């Protein structure tokens, strides 16, 4: 038995969720190998080789892998999969897009978005937007599993010295062409890994009003999130969406502002350690998951909040 993990990276650096997936993968089996498919991604392979949990790195390098198209990635993964009992990767948009294509080609019923490894064939996973947890057992010989990264700690990034071996590329796909990626650049912490997240909802009333949230995020070194309603209304871009169909976050502190708390939003944040809700509707469902609820008009509360933060001598970053 051994595990093949598909690394997510940008050809220069490993994406942080790969480290969380490595932790989960090594809980399935200690013999964990990482597949790095990319273009001139030597630095990525070298940094993954230093992760102590990783026993081997397999690097496949070709210009056709500059951008991750599942049509290009799956044939080489299938070729490598022969020697492994488990194929795993993180359950973010990278893994969600890729893994089912691999699983179908291997004739395997995929286990999506696990939050706990119970045994090499049994896993815990949320269903119904996290309103129920299912314990499932895969009976397929080869198992394809995606991992909810925020449910596992990131693996240590130094101390290891796994060997790096090279493997052959496959033919380029003619089905799909990558055109562009519009990444939202920000100096803030990433939403998925930030210690503090402050999110705005429909109650913000406009994109311009998000500056009230931005000011507090600056102060707390927080990432900015949003409810689906706020994204749909065009207040903020889609990469900020927290919830069942957006991102799942588990920060130490989550501040929900003007968010009513539909179950689809709660699915993305209710595992946060401390939850604060600011809403003028005292009956809003968000208060049912909040450790600290403040029933107030956000347009008064947010400037006051900033003022109170300014009074503090120290703020954790």
């Amino acid at each position, binding site marked *: 038995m051994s595990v093949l993990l598909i690394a997510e990276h940008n050809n220069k650096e490993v994406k942080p969720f790969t480290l969380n997936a490595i932790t989960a993968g090594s809980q399935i089996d200690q013999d964990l190998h990482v597949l790095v498919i990319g273009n001139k991604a030597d630095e990525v392979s070298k940094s993954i080789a230093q992760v102590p949990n990783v026993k081997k790195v397999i690097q496949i390098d070709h210009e056709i892998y500059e951008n991750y198209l*599942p049509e290009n990635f*799956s044939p080489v993964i299938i070729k490598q999969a022969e020697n492994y009992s488990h194929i795993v990767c993180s359950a973010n*948009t*990278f893994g969600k897009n890729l893994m*089912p*294509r691999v699983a*179908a080609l291997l004739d*395997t*019923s*995929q286990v*999506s*978005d696990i939050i706990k490894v119970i045994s090499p064939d049994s896993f815990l996973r*949320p*269903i*119904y*937007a996290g*309103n*129920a*947890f*299912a314990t*499932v*057992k*895969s009976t397929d010989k080869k198992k394809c599993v995606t991992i909810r990264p925020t449910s596992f700690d990131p693996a240590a990034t130094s101390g290891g010295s796994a060997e790096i071996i090279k493997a052959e590329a496959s033919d380029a*796909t003619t*089905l*799909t*062409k*990558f*055109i*562009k*990626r*519009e990444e*939202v650049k920000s100096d803030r912490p990433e939403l998925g890994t930030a210690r*503090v997240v402050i999110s705005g909802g429909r109650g913000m009333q406009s994109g311009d009003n998000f500056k009230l949230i931005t000011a507090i995020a600056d102060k*707390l070194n927080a990432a900015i999130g949003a409810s*689906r309603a706020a*994204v749909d209304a065009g207040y903020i871009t*889609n*990469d900020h969406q927290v919830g069942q*169909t957006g*991102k799942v976050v588990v920060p*130490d*502190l989550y501040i929900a502002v003007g968010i009513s708390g539909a*179950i*689809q939003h709660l699915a993305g944040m*209710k595992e946060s350690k*401390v*939850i*604060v809700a600011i809403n003028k509707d005292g009956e809003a469902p968000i208060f049912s*998951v*909040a*450790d*600290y609820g*403040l029933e*107030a008009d956000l347009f008064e*509360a947010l400037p*006051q*909040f900033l003022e*109170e*933060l300014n009074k503090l001598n120290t703020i954790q970053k």
Partner: protein
Amino acid sequence: MKILVAVKRVIDYNVQIRVKEDGTGVVTDNVKMSTNPPDDNAVEEAVKIKEAGKAKEIVAVTVGEDKAQETVRKALAVGADRGIHVKVEGTIEPLAVSKVLQKIVDKEKPDLVFMGKQAIDDDCNQTGQMLAALLNWPQATFASKIEVKDKSLEVTREVDEGLETIEVNIPAIVTCDLRLNEPRYASLPNIMKAKKKPIEQINASDLGVDTKQRIQQIKVEEPPKRKAGIKVANVEELVQKLKNEAKVI
């Protein structure tokens, strides 16, 4: 051009889910059911493409028990031309659904297959990608914008980093995000008309697809509950609590 749209019947998104006491699943008796929300977006997009004169026929398909037909009927009421109901009892996994859909694609020969990016019941997010693999077609997942070109689609996808644009050759599979469009409501006359549109019934077993479950559900339980929180009187108290009690700022 012909578009096949796959729709799934799920517990309505507004229903508060209750876990069965015996741990075998969630309560579905006397619970409101409806079409999986992003599947509504898939139907809407197909209808818009047809209205723009770029598609001739829309076929709505569902895989499930008898009542799953309701979702096909709803698709017919907003503009699909005819329906297919592949009948299967009990739980069917995405891999088996994609194998069933592969058979339907072989028979119907559509140019495009649309469906929601994820079903809100099992939250698997697999079927579209699996169908694309089985057919060796390109996949455009999590689509928030679709532009129909001559022999291809240009699709904007919602990804963690922001937006990604790809071009996929037709035939292609597209899985739809909730932001792709605003699904319309069916008008009463169209609901009446939809009752006359044909729905073909097929048994999954007649398609020669093995729908046996590969994943055993051992138990379903309630997630751990958060302990009840408190209401604070004002912002000052909130900041003091966060600083001195929760110690998070």
